[in-house]
């Protein structure tokens, strides 16, 4: 590593553990100015130690950042640590200790459907399980440990709770408690992993670097709970008996049962986006005259209601839509061209195609570097790599398949692709050299001292559809009707 041997770098979480982590650091005199939920800073300096700095990450990125040696220490939830280690047990991570705070658990949950046997009745007997999760590695481990005969895992960016029972048998998801699982319309089958905050170290640095000054500060806060060195209790996976859960939860489920069974009768299934894209999509749909209940900022129902009785709607992440349309869980979806292209770059023969450009939500997908990098275009960058000044080029992106293709097409080699889960601009310049990301105005990039060197393409919202659905005589007519309806919204 380039930095001095006594310099210590810490990766700190955004989101659910930001506040308790900030409090902890304050208490043990390791406080950082600007580590709070109002901050626009990603890079933090220690108030006390000049040789200590920190950076704020999406929690999910932290285990990887520590394992690859960009950070000496990190704090994040045990769920993301196990998600990495269950698939890559040789990762250079040391779980130093649980910290004395945590929240919620990762649950396996299903939907209870009246009249049909529980999907978990006998995992080894049922074939063709569909499991949806933000934790695809934990999901695979569960499937193997339960000896599921055949299974498919749908990795998603979020909203796993809306998939069962029609689009998946089981969701593996994080929730504050069992009641929170029930409130999302599901039955918790098993608590797979209680989530506590964990102090992590890079194995190599833990063995070879003096981190004692910093670790000393943590020592009073390390819990008496055993450090999860061997991961979570795997035996629990093997012995989980969901039958015990189900009868207790039945009452809670009654109200969702009806809406689920209705979904099966819908001839056309449409996915609408949550997050940033929700509001412009909602406004667009208003212009088309489509009546929609439960798809507003104030009230988001994951299964909004419409007066077209043959149309079923669910609200999921736009990132997940092309895959979900390809595998037939949905016929149509409103997403961005960027996510369609990301999907098609990975699966060129996928049966998903764009049906209508909706025109709104325009962003540019760009490649950007730090302002001080002596490169104004991709050719300059290639020359820098070939001269040996940067090798390998570290590329951070949420769009790993678009990035991969872009790098290939531009003969950028050698390079390392770092998948990120948002806030990718914070990776440069310390943890990545090139960013491939979307931008509306370029302001955020400029704020982070980045300059755009290439525009890959422009992306707007679009309606995508499954080619097989279009070929189906029954569905084709209704899809055509919807395309006509949506065309009315084009300004």
């Amino acid at each position, binding site marked *: 590593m380039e930095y001095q041997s006594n310099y210590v770098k810490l990766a700190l979480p955004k989101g659910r553990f930001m506040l308790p982590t900030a409090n902890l650091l304050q208490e043990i005199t390791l406080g950082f100015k600007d580590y709070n939920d109002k901050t626009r800073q990603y890079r933090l300096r220690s108030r006390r130690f000049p040789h200590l700095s920190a950076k704020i990450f999406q929690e999910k990125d932290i285990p990887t950042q520590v394992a690859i040696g960009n950070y000496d220490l990190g704090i994040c939830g045990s769920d993301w640590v196990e998600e990495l280690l*269950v698939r890559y*047990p*040789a990762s250079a991570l040391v779980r130093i200790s649980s910290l004395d705070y945590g929240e919620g658990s990762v649950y396996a949950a299903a939907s209870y459907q009246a009249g049909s046997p529980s999907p978990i009745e006998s995992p*080894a007997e049922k*074939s063709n399980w*569909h499991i949806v999760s933000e934790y695809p590695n934990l999901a695979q*481990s569960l*499937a*193997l*440990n339960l*000896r*599921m*005969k*055949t*299974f*498919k*895992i*749908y990795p998603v960016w979020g909203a796993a709770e809306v998939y069962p029972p029609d689009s998946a048998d089981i969701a593996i998801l994080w929730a504050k408690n069992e009641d929170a699982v029930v409130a999302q319309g599901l039955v918790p089958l098993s608590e797979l992993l209680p989530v506590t905050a964990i102090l992590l170290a890079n194995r190599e640095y833990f063995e070879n670097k003096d981190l004692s000054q910093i670790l000393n500060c943590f020592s009073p806060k390390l819990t008496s709970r055993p450090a999860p060195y061997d991961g979570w209790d795997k*035996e629990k996976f*093997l*012995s989980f008996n969901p039958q015990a859960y189900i009868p207790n939860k039945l009452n809670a489920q009654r109200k969702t049962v009806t809406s689920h069974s209705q979904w099966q009768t819908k001839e056309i299934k449409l996915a609408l986006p949550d997050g940033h894209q929700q509001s412009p999509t909602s406004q667009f749909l208003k212009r088309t005259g489509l009546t929609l209940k439960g798809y507003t900022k104030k009230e988001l129902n994951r299964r909004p209601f419409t007066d077209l009785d043959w149309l079923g709607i669910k609200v999921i992440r736009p990132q997940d839509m*092309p*895959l979900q349309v*390809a*595998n037939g869980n949905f016929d149509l979806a409103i997403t961005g061209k960027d996510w369609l292209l990301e*999907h098609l770059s*990975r*699966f*060129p*023969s*996928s049966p*998903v195609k764009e049906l209508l450009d909706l025109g709104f939500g325009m962003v540019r997908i760009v490649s950007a570097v730090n302002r001080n990098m002596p490169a104004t275009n991709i050719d300059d960058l290639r020359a820098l790599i070939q001269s040996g000044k940067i*090798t*390998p080029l570290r590329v951070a992106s949420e769009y790993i398949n678009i990035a991969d293709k872009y790098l290939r097409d531009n003969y950028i080699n*050698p390079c390392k692709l770092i998948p990120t889960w948002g806030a990718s601009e914070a990776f440069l310049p310390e943890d990545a050299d090139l960013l491939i990301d979307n931008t509306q105005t370029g302001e955020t990039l400029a704020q982070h001292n980045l300059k755009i060197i290439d525009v890959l393409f422009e992306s707007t919202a679009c309606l995508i559809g499954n080619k097989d659905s279009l070929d189906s005589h029954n569905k084709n007519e209704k899809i055509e009707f919807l395309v006509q309806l949506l065309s009315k919204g084009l300004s």
Partner: protein
Amino acid sequence: MENQKCKGMRDLLPNDMINFRHIEGAFRNCCLKYGYQEVRTPTLEYLHLFTAIGTLTPNMLGKVYSFLDWNGWSGERVVLRPDGTIPIARLYINNLSEHKIRKLFYVNNIFAFEETGKKGRERWQCGAEFIGSAKLAADVEIILLAREVVRKLGINNIKLQLSHAGLVKALIKELNLSPGEEAKIKSHILDGDWQALMEAKTTISELDKLISPLLSLKGKSSGFLHNTRALYQQASPDFQSSLDDFTNISTLLDSLGCDYEIDITAISGFEYYTGVCFQLLANGDKIGGGGRYDDLIPLMSEKNIPACGFALYIDPMMKLLPMEHKESGEYRILIRGEESTPETMKSCFTLAQALRDAKKTIEIDFAKQESSGYRWVISVSDKKPSTFAIWDSKQNQRTEVASVLEILNILGG
């Protein structure tokens, strides 16, 4: 960035390949003489081929190389073949199952993640499968075939260990565990951890009497099994019939003069074994193993077809080959062009072709390379009166010749 090879992967260099081909050749010859036919399965298979039958342990399935194929949007994963036998069973079911008996063999690589990367993650094995016979003669045939291959290769200090999966399974049944507990103990044993069984037995004291002697069961003849049987009069019919089967096979091996050692813990690997299992060790290293797996094809196809087979591990065997299989330079022949003119080059290539047609192995050199490894060096020149000069490094003798026929006379054979 250096051009490094992937962790856990191995380059096979020329000398390695000589050993590799030698093992492969001996294996193929033996199998062909026993009437087995060669097949080869693809490197990629669906993950569900291995999960569906529930025969590989979660631990093993957690170590497969799996990924999404180009049409992986459905969530279907593919794997680099993690096991040799299951794909052969699939191949049989898909293509050959109209013949009840098929004897097949293969030379394939299998892939498994190994954490340290110090042991190989790509392993080569040669295996044979006798599909369609439940007779103990089939068990004995595959044991004899495996042993013959190893013997033909001249590998010394071979130990053949016999165990019986049916016996082990019957033993676990005696413990009267819940299905979950039973699956767990089986997984431990299949992953090579017999301690789990020792621990389970200590909770029930009567079973201690049953298990302890069996786990330490080590003997060198069928008489040993016969006497052991007398100790287990109370055991279940499954246990008794497995012990009978085991005794009959070892009796037949005795009569054929095949040495073995009975060791009930000599099972590692796969749950699909149902009957006699064996391991081959050389100087303590495991170089192969196999056994009867009557339930595998029924699980995959609902066809009630029994089978048995084995695999020999090429990588450890390559280290054990006797030295005489290393390549010697005694018969190597080099043609050297004295000039780099088109005429000389043409003469060199023409001569080389003529000698190759006469079944000689010929290398050509225009760069005046080191010739010490060669028995003969033939110099070719268009400027000298006699076109060819042969240098015999063994006789230390130079001869000028004018024709290919003369050269062949000198080279002999």
